């Protein structure tokens, strides 16, 4: 914000704070932190103009480890606090760090509204399908049957699909990745480029209370069979050799996993990804036997903080320069002599 910002090449180190990182050994959060610290210099970010805002939970300790401005707030409210910050200073580059409990349980309402308003933020939701900081209770994304201290006979709650929630809230950018993915920086970059609220669900392993819940997807050996990396304008193919793909069943209007070369399926039968197609994005949120990764949906819309700024400028044009004395004299006044 200074008039002549010093030209400086930032590195990962410039974005790392001097605080000792206190997540459990093996926690997926370490990998996400490293990816964020690594990508920020490439995004042209500066420590002074970058702010990380979090709520409560393991993930929400994140800001303490960033050498930027940071605010570790209260449970679930980070989106609202970030909205206020963007209203006060729209120039700041603001990231919200939240988890499945913080963002979808106690803070579900705020996440809903920050997405529909399309406030210009990057929102990273670390989804480990468990409550970590309170020691292992089931979360709103835990699978039915999950045995935890608060569900000794298995959870009977239906889980929420975060990306589906985001689309339902009219998010203009919805992406998914996982903690140790090499492509996480790429997804973060896409999110950062987007004007408006960019929602990224990051599948994250909790080695203490929910270890291995995403192993099939994230394991180097099994992963390729379960990871569908989306490329806009490209056929949606996956598998170790890209032999599998998504085919639209015209009768049921659902996406099916097919193998190219089998049962007469050719490349032409594979659906091409279109980031702006809301119906497609909706189907991609929850596929049978495969997880869509990358950008599920991207459709720019009016940005809340920009609209607010415009209205303020309009008010100045329409009502002229502010004059407190005149304000106090609006309506009827009279003089006593």
């Amino acid at each position, binding site marked *: *914000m*200074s008039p002549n*910002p*010093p030209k400086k090449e930032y590195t990962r180190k410039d974005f790392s*704070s001097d*605080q000792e990182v206190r997540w459990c050994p093996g926690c997926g959060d370490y990998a996400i932190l490293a990816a964020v610290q690594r990508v920020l210099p490439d995004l042209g970010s500066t420590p*002074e*103009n970058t702010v990380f805002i979090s709520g409560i939970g393991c993930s929400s300790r994140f*800001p*303490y480890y*960033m*050498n*930027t*401005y*940071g*605010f*570790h*707030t*209260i449970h679930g*409210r980070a*989106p*609202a*606090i*970030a*909205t*206020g*910050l*963007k*209203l*006060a*200073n729209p*120039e*700041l580059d603001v990231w919200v760090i939240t988890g499945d409990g913080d963002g979808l349980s106690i803070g579900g*309402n*705020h996440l*809903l*509204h920050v997405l529909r308003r399309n406030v210009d933020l990057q929102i990273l939701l670390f989804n480990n399908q468990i409550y970590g900081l309170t020691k292992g209770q089931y979360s709103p994304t835990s699978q039915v049957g999950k045995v935890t201290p608060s569900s000794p006979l298995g959870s009977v709650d239906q889980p929420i699909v975060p990306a589906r929630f985001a689309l339902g809230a009219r998010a203009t950018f919805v992406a998914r990745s996982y903690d140790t993915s090499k492509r996480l920086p790429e997804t973060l970059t896409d999110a950062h480029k987007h004007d408006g609220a960019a929602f990224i669900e990051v599948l994250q392993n909790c080695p203490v209370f929910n270890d291995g819940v995403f192993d099939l997807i994230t394991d180097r050996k099994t992963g390729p069979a379960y990871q569908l990396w989306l490329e806009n304008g490209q056929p949606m193919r996956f598998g170790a050799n890209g032999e599998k793909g998504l085919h639209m069943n015209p009768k049921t209007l659902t996406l099916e996993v097919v193998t190219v070369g089998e049962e007469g399926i050719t490349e032409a039968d594979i659906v091409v990804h279109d980031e702006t197609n809301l119906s497609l994005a909706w189907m991609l949120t929850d596929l049978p036997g495969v997880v869509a990764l990358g950008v599920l949906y991207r459709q720019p819309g009016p940005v809340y903080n920009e609209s*607010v700024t415009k*209205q*303020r400028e*309009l*008010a*100045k044009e*329409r*009502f*002229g*320069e*502010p004059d*407190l*004395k005149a*304000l*106090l*004299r609006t*309506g*009827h*006044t*009279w*003089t*006593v*002599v």
Partner: protein
Amino acid sequence: METSAAARVHPSPREILDSVVIRFAGDSGDGMQLTGSQFTTATAVAGNDLATFPDFPAEIRAPAGTTYGVSGFQIHFAAHDIRTPGDAPDVLVAMNPAALKVNIDVLEPGGLLVVNTGAFNKNNLAKAGYEENPLDDGSLDPFRILAIDITKMTLESVKGIGLGSKDAQRCKNMWTLGLMYWLFGRERESTVRWLEKKFVKTPKVLEANIAALNAGHIYGENADLPHGIGAYQVPAAKLEPGQYRNISGNEATAWGLVTGAKLAGLEIVYGSYPITPASNLLHNLARLKQFGVTTFQAEDEIAAVSAAVGASFGGAIGVTGTSGPGVALKSEAIGLAIATELPLVIVDVQRGGPSTGLPTKTEQSDLFQAVWGRNGDAPLAVLAAATPGDCFYMAVEAVRIAVKYMTPVMLLSDGYLANGAEPWHLPDIDALEPFPVQFRDDPEGFMPFMRDKDTLARVWAIPGTPGLEHRIGGLEKQQDTGHISYDPENHHMMTKLREAKVQRIAKDVPKAAIDQGDPRGDMLVVGWGSTYGAISQAVRMLRERGRKVSHLHLRNIWPLPEGVGDLLRSFGSVLVPELNNGQLVKLLRAEYLVDADSLTKIAGQPFRISELVEAAEERLKRSLQ
């Protein structure tokens, strides 16, 4: 009122009266609030001092004709200085049987009763619970009655304009207003001008309303009024010279916030969720975007305050406005602002509680919530406005304290102040002392929780400043560095430090001073908030009777200003009247170990002067026995 107009009224043209209290009452759809506010403007033009009290139901349009749908507007105006809307009306305007039923008990015998006989049909009488028509059964004999079929008169006056019957009937409040203008010698001009603005797009409705207003006035001029009813005049009051306007508490608060932000050199981010009776604070501020005001209608009370906290982190002054139930929801976020030592202004326009309580009625029952209502030892500053106009100054003061001490400040208003209006001597904006905020920008030796040694306020370093990157949060932090700290001694010290910082404010606000009376005597009446007018008038009356009674009115609730203890101990007894179940009284007893006596009223209505006088007299008598 002892100076009842009714007691001295006898038939003669334009009899001079010293003061009059009129209550307009009708169905909530009858436009009584509007009628009352128009009469208020015309009365201000006539140069009287005045005070008003709107009293309306929570239902927007309660079923027509029912007692719970009755909406009232009381105005007290006088040829001298007054401070309350009056204890009991001298004049009651009842637009239907329900309005009569609800209000007749407070009309003094001999009082003037204006009724719209056109609404006294079988159906309306039954809805109001009358078995017999009170206009015929002699029950209204103690009053002077002006019984007019206002409905019929109105319809006749707008005939030929071409309005439907429903729209035509709607003009009956203007007909009534015209008659009242004639009775009390008010000019119609301000209302005509107002109508012209309001109905600029519906010329027929405009024509009809003006016709009805004029017809009511002409009726007064020509009618052979019943014996005992004449035309009256209340001469102009001697007010301090200067420019005046009418102002309601919520208007004054909004303008005070804008003024405070300007004096601080900051922009405002006002986060709010609509709630009675604070909503029009949001409406007022939403119209002031050109003053650097951003209003954010949040998804809930928590988001509203959270956005304000985020804005303060970013270098604006975050403000949130609400009522008691909203403050309850905001408590955790207010605690965050206390822990992170960010400025924040919370306006609590109090209403009857607990829970949803009495949304449209006034009460002072959030004092404990304001002072103590958070988890942990979580001190903040609490201010209370005494009059609608005082809301302006207290809002400025709230911003000043918030930015100077890096603390949340709770400003207590209430439904009575928010909606009540009074003539307001316009302040000289240029004479207000600016308090420009200095953000930290020097990285040399910077630590986020380093403090000013006088105020104990921490530095305010905002995102965007190179070299000052830092993290704050709700976890306990180490002194100076702000690093997370679980150290037992540090937590003890930080808790004491946060308390000490808020207590320093007491040295920065006016010392407690007697508002009226001597610095010692038999009884000190201690009030706070909107009871100012009633207590002030009551103490004046008591003193006129020779009682050694004084009035102390607290605007700084927390920290309490210096000198309160000495004053409390300088009187034989202390009486604390409050519109709650006894809150300030407990605070005073706890802080000063004085035997303060409580006078409570929890009726959703303000104190009457007579109630206060009687209570004080009774206690004075008891103490002499």
